[in-house]
């Protein structure tokens, strides 16, 4: 059974149909890429899955549960985490506290008030920061990091939520070529732990890390399949005039 099942998802803003009956399925430990031109509905689909937008029609099932109208907090606790397109770390908090904030999210209110998990989570915070090469900056304010490092911190924060499905909306936006390469290397090992749904304009980047691709245009799915299938898809090439 797929981890995420999206069926007939439709989202309408006024007279604009952003998504029109989209179907999508993602299995455990699958890296799935969403591509398409600007305005094709990729980010809207991500937002509907994460709970930032309520779909006009259709259903979303996650790990067997219907989460179509669940709050973002409920989805996050179920294991569905979104990394926003625009960097949205907590700038006034330290890098360390940004990660601790995400890690402690499942603690009870009483546990938080009495700081029962603070010591136990320390090793975990440092381990995640080391993995994304941010340990040396842990005492600094998140606002002091470079744009690329803030993107990494946001991925760390998303991973700290211990997701079963991680939604990454343009994780390499604004990064240099070197930062993109490092980001790809940093993301590959998480395949052991969770699935990934990723929206990205950098086609080389997405081709290197994804198992499956779905191509959207004007809110409709044009094609879906393995990377090699999409690369050879005449339909995709005809519609977009691009080599995937």
């Amino acid at each position: 059974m797929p981890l995420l099942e999206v069926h007939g998802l439709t989202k309408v803003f006024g007279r604009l149909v952003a998504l029109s009956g989209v179907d999508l399925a993602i299995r455990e430990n699958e890296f799935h890429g969403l591509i398409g031109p600007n305005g094709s509905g990729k980010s809207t689909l991500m937002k509907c899955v994460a709970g930032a937008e309520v779909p006009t029609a259709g259903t979303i099932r996650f790990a067997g549960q219907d989460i179509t109208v669940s709050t973002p907090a409920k989805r996050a606790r179920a294991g569905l985490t979104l990394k926003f397109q625009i960097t949205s770390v907590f700038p006034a908090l330290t890098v360390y506290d940004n990660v601790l904030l995400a890690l402690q999210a499942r603690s009870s209110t009483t546990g938080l008030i009495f700081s029962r998990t603070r010591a136990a989570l320390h090793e975990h915070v440092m381990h995640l920061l080391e993995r994304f090469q941010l340990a040396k900056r842990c005492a600094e304010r998140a606002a002091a990091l470079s744009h690329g490092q803030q993107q990494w911190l946001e991925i760390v924060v998303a991973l700290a939520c211990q997701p079963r499905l991680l939604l990454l909306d343009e994780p390499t936006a604004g990064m240099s070529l070197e930062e993109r390469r490092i980001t790809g290397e940093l993301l590959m090992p998480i395949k052991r732990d969770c699935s990934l749904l990723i929206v990205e304009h950098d086609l080389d980047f997405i081709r290197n890390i994804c198992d499956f691709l779905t191509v959207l245009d004007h809110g409709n799915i044009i094609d879906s399949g393995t990377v090699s299938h999409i690369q050879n898809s005449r339909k995709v090439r005809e519609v977009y005039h691009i080599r995937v």
Partner: protein
Amino acid sequence: MPAASSIGAGSLRGYQRRVIPIIEIVLFAVFVAAPIVLQDYITVFVTRVLILALLALSFDLVWGYSGIMSFGQALFFGAAGYGVALLARDLQITSAFIVLPAAFVIGLIVSVAIGAFLLLGRHPPTTIFVALGTLAGSYVADRLARDWYYLGGQNGIPSIPPMTAGGYEFAEGPAYYYLTLTVLALVYLVCRFVVRSQFGLALAGVREHEARIAFLGYEGQRMKLAMFSLAGAVAGLAGGLYAFHEGFVWPNMLGVVISTQIVLYALLGGVGTLIGPIIGVIIVEIASFALSDSVPKVWPIVLGLLLLFAIQFAPTGLIGLVASERERVGDFGRPPLRPRHTDAAPDDAAA
């Protein structure tokens, strides 16, 4: 895998000067010593300042720590004041062991009711919605008390007997002062514990980016309600102390004037730190005390200008002039540690 243990020595805790703990210690030491050197009538005045400081602390909990703009803290203050006044008038209950917990509970119940209505919608409420909602609550309570005969109407409830503990009466002066100071110190310590805990970190997240924190799994609106309720209970405690200290309660205690006054005092001192609003209350009240007799016509103008200047040029309040942003926001995790070895610097590639 590089273990966390490789992040070794060199705590950064002492890397910067911390001034807030010094201010806290000095201020509370001055409070303890004040009645020894002050005349009794000034001690009575300073008692009132401490009670208002408690009210300012309650506003700080909602705005400074939770990002809820409340113009209605006087509602909880006044409701608890009226509640304990009725206990004293109708049931002859004046025991501190009953009236102070009762004031706390009344503030809590009223704030939970108002807070649940204002904060627990499907979507997070806007700042202006909550500000106007609390302001309206405060105004309505004021009008209700003025027109309710049982509550004494415009005159309120006079002649409240002194608070007692066993056979001891807390008369105006040093006895009531130390009772108030004890309550203030205990509330301060509890608030300090809460805002520096992991819950305080979650509140910092709510304050900075409420929409984002929901995607980490936090119920931001419920956390805000918890803090709004705690703040209401603290305001209630202040109202209970105020009623017995003044010996009467009247509708102004519930109204928008006190609500707004407390907001301005707290902003002047600096919200987002617990000590800032207390400093704001002390400065304005002492200046009022000293100048309102000598320059009664000019003083309100001076006060207004002072507050305008503070908001315009020192938005972090007086405490922001001496404490860095980092100290005011604080660190919530274990003290971040500096790496032992600095030869490899892979993250510099991305910097």
